[in-house]
Every structure is written in structure tokens, then in C-alpha cells.
């Protein structure tokens, strides 16, 4: 399964996903209400310890997910060195890193199936308002199934282009790509209808 859940089994993998997500909401909310440098340093330190506990592999893959932030850290650092509000800049950088690292921690320790259960739980009120629960499930499964299919079709299109031209395809490739996806959508819709469609699901 192409998921970002860590293959390194941690104790947190067994915690209920709902609990982890509520904790995440609470702690992230708290981060944005406190402006204290010592607090933010200690908080980030605690998160680093949490990442280090399951071992080296877990820590380094967590670090890789955090690296996307560095351009913004650079901007904030330069900005606050320029304006002279260094402490405020440090708080912003620490808070940003903590918030993202904490959320990634939940992603890394929660299995896709557990997350989907939470989605179902949260969607309960919507089901009562008329959203078809089976339709949501089917749509999630379809996206997971069709993404690799579309990716391989996109690759074939790129190869076909390269076989005919020594210039790069650029954005022109997106038109046939979109047309392929639209045709696939028609075929999938027909196949669903041929297998009884979604109406019988509603009656179950």
C-alpha cells in the first residue's frame, strides 16, 4: 500500500486513531496561542525525543518529511534578522516545525485502515443528511485503484511523444491525458451500472 504510515512498528500504532487526531488538534491549537520561546524550544525538543524513541530509521524518515519547510525557515530567518525581532522569528520557526512534525507523527503512526474508520465516524452526520456512505467508500477505493492506472497511461503518453519528437512534450501532453481520464471515467461508470449500479446499495 502506498501510504506514509511508517513500517517501523511503534507503540503509538496501537493507539486509537481518533485519540491521536484529537490530541493533535488540541496541541496544535495550543501552539498558536502561546508565544513563549522557552515553551516552544522545549515542545520541539519533546517532539524530537518522540521521533528518536522508535529508532534511527523512524527518525530519519521523519526528518525527510520535515525538510520541505526549509525555504520558509530561511525566509523567516532572513526577515527577522533584518527587522531585528530575532526572538519572535525563532518562535515562528519553532512553532512551524512543531506543528508540522506533530501532524506527521500522527500520519506515520496511523494505518490507512484506521484513518478510513475515522473518516467514516466523522461522516456519520453527513450520512444522515443524505450522503451515500457506500458512494464515499467506493469513491475512495476508485481513486486508490485508478491513480496508478492513470500514472502508467501518462508515462506511455510521454514515451509515445518522445518516440516522435526530440522536443519535450510540455503542457500539450495534458490534453490527451485528460481525455484518457474522461474516457476511463465513462467506462468505469458503465461498468458500475452493468454490475447493478449504486441504487441497489442504497436499498441494502
Amino acid at each position, binding site marked *: 500500500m502506498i*501510504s506514509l504510515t511508517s513500517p517501523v512498528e511503534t507503540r503509538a500504532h496501537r493507539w486509537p486513531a481518533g485519540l491521536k487526531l484529537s490530541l493533535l488538534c488540541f496541541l496544535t491549537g495550543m501552539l498558536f496561542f502561546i508565544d513563549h520561546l522557552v515553551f516552544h524550544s522545549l515542545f520541539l525538543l519533546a517532539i524530537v525525543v518522540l521521533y528518536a524513541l522508535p529508532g534511527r530509521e523512524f527518525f530519519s524518515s521523519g526528518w525527510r518529511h520535515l525538510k520541505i519547510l526549509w525555504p520558509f525557515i530561511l525566509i523567516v530567518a532572513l*526577515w527577522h534578522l533584518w527587522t531585528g525581532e530575532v526572538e519572535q522569528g525563532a518562535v515562528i520557526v519553532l512553532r*512551524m516545525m512543531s506543528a508540522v512534525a506533530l501532524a506527521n507523527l500522527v500520519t506515520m503512526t496511523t494505518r490507512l485502515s484506521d484513518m478510513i474508520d475515522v473518516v467514516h465516524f466523522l461522516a456519520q452526520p453527513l450520512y444522515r443528511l443524505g450522503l451515500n456512505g457506500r458512494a464515499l467508500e467506493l*469513491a*475512495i477505493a476508485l*481513486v486508490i485503484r485508478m491513480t496508478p*492506472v492513470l500514472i502508467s497511461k501518462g508515462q506511455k503518453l510521454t514515451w509515445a511523444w518522445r518516440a516522435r519528437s526530440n522536443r519535450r512534450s510540455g503542457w500539450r501532453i495534458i490534453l490527451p491525458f485528460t481525455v484518457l481520464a474522461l474516457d476511463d471515467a465513462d467506462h468505469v461508470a458503465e461498468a458500475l451500472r452493468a454490475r447493478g449500479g449504486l441504487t441497489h446499495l442504497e436499498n441494502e
Partner: protein
Amino acid sequence: MEKNIAYTALFAALIAALGLVPKITLAFGVPITAQSLGIMLCGAILGSKRGSLAVLLFLLLVAIGLPLLSGGRGGLGLFFSTTGGFLIGWPVAAFVTGLIVEKWRSASIALVATIASIIGGIIVLYAFGIVGMSIVLDKTLTEAAALMLVFIPGDIIKAVIAGLLTAAIAKSRPASLLSRSAKSA
């Protein structure tokens, strides 16, 4: 019903697949990620309701941990990072783009889809993105907006491409242009 689900799911998958297409570099060196082009196309082709649902479905899968965003990114952390506002703005951007294409039928589809993509995919989207950025980076809205200015030219080109693509789809697969089909009106 089946068609709605198939189109919504396939477009969510299309946005994901566009994230894996290597960054497209335009003639004069402006790199564009195809993924935000996918958001504009979602609205312009599927219309307001189905377009925004497709984007929501895509974001749901990103949030629960599938690495579907360009560069293989995913997970909850992205929604709290500096560009999280843009992610939250994506479904709204697709909705507004779709709504304009649905309602404004007097001009050519290429022109309408381009302007709809500019209003939805740039003005509305940047409003969300700038607010998100100003919260995370603790900057005023004007300061955050200044940081985003460099990306506007590339996004305008993207909107024009979205307009041209929508017009081409209207010609090659008229029945698939759900934003202009009789039912969605």
C-alpha cells in the same frame, strides 16, 4: 449517480497523477506544477459541485496519509505548513471556477474557462493561501501577499492553458464537459 462517482473519483486520481508528471518547464523557464492546473480543470470541466467534490476527495486521501501531492508529499502535516492555506482553498477555487463556467455561457468556452480559472484558481485561491501563510508565519496579510507575488505570472499562464484545454475538451469530448451539460444548469 454512477457517472457522478466515476467522474469525481477519476478526476481526483487525475490530480494525483498530474502530481507525478515531472515539473513542466515553459518556454521561458517558468516551472509549473501540473497539479494546480488539475484544480482549475476540475472546476472548468466538472462544474462547481462535482469539481469541488473531486478536489475534496483528493485532499481527504492526502490527509489520511497517501503521498499524492506533487513530490510524493502527503499526510496531515501539510495542512499545518505554510502552504496549508492553499490546500484548504483548493476545493473553493474549483467550486468558483466551475460556477463561472456554468453560469457564463455567452462568450467562447476558452475565454470563459480562462477567466474562471483566474478568478477561482488565482484570486480566490490566493486569498486562502495568503491568510494561511500570514497565520503560520505570523506576518501581516500584506507581507504574506508580497511573498506570493512571484508566483502570479506562472499561475496566469496556467489559467490560460486551463482555458485552452477546456476548449479542446469541449471539442473532442463534448458529452464529458459536465460544467456545460444541460443537467448541471
